[in-house]
């Protein structure tokens, strides 16, 4: 196969692959909270569970624990995002996307946009 055809073929396959991966990501559900480990730090996750221990700090940050029956993880929504999130309530089931981080030795999930929190 000549170089021009190879270039076209590899571009076409790349495009098809990315479209398929996007479709897979749209179709999949949340990951079990218990599966999150320190290895996941800095990566994005999609989790679902019930809100417990909801509190808002004086600075406007939101903090709570998300439980899904198998595990629990701290969630921190900082004020820039928390300002636009109004649907989080104690005992409510929500789903959210966020980045896994670590604070004082414990893992936490940090949503980065208001749209990352689905109530």
């Amino acid at each position, binding site marked *: 196969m000549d170089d021009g055809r190879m270039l076209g073929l*590899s571009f076409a396959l790349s495009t098809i692959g990315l479209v398929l*991966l996007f479709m897979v990501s749209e179709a999949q559900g949340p990951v079990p909270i218990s599966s999150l480990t320190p290895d996941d730090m800095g990566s994005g996750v999609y989790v679902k569970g019930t809100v417990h221990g909801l509190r808002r700090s004086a600075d406007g940050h939101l903090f709570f624990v998300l439980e899904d029956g198998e595990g629990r993880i701290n969630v921190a929504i900082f004020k820039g995002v928390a300002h636009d999130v109004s649907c989080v309530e104690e005992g409510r089931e929500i789903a959210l996307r966020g980045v896994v981080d670590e604070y004082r030795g414990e893992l936490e999930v940090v949503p980065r946009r208001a749209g990352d929190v689905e109530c």
Partner: protein
Amino acid sequence: MLDLLAFIFLGVLLGTFTGLVPGIHVNTVVIVVIALLPALLESFTPYSVIALVIAMSLVHSYVDYIPSIFLGAPQEDSVLSVLPGHRLLLKGRGYEAVRLTVVGGLGATVMGLLMLLAGIMVLPAVYPYVRAAVPYLLIALLFYIVWMQNRGRQLYAALAVLYSGLLGILILDRGIISLKYALFPALTGLFGVSTLLTSLRTNASIPPQTLEWEPVRYGKGVLAGSFAGALAGLLPSIGSSQSATLIQGLFGGGDEKEFLIALGGVNTANSIYAFLALYLIGRARSGASIAVKEIMDVLSPADLLFMVSVVLFTTFFAVFITLELAKMGALFVQSLDYRSFSLVIIAFLTLLVDLLTGWRGLLILATASAIGLFVQEAGVNRSTSMAVLIVPTIIYFLG
């Protein structure tokens, strides 16, 4: 004292294992160590367990260049070494390629210790400013790669950034597969399988390998590698590879030996500074340093001295083992038929991806390989594909 030595040697063995086997990161073992912590701390001192984690992490940072250079099977930390390493391998200088990364690692260890005092005095004050500047540095880096490193091919380079960046967002932000293994199929495809496929197309062969090396100037590589590795060790979401891409501009396309030295320096400095960050800024910056923080939340100057001592003691074993394994690797690959060897390695990597990540991982591997082939066929600088890590990192910092 005896249990301390035993734990260090166990760490050396485990680090050699995780460094040699593609897809198995040192963090995989760290998770087991964290799970076993309560039991371990009942029978052994915290210092023994910390020594195990540091020894494992440090040895891994040296050994993981061997599969990257000889097999084209990189891990996240060693991915950029595939290309210059593979070029040297095809010139009969695979051992020298590994040796250059070892020189970089050794130099970074010395530099790391020299910079430690400055770090203790200056870092807490400048850290917030450096952290704030990171996303803008990375954006500037992407523009630099597209416009300066790909003259006349900017459109192709921009497409490569777009596709690699989209791939990174899909695998790191959307959680298609377990995040623990998400980068393995992507980096293997972008840099490993695509390189092997191109070698197959061009009928490349592995010439007889020499165990000799040529004198090389190492000052620039060691300095750049140490600085970039320290950045990677101290800043969140910045790994060895993003940091190494930052310094790649310094070396352009020609000076592959100095670049390999810098890469070795980045990896080792990252590994060391991830531990020093615990003392300097009180933050864990790697899976291994989280384990240390679990064991000992607040570190004293004496604890810092202990960690530095373990690093120095372990470095001897890391260097010795890496060079001996590289000699064995060089003698082994030269006896192989390269075409069959490449096919076996591609099959092996595909099987490993399937075992670790299933069909979704295979889809990522296929897509990443196609993007890697596109980058090569378009004549674009291969480091452009590092957008797979850089774009998600920029998004992380800018929120």
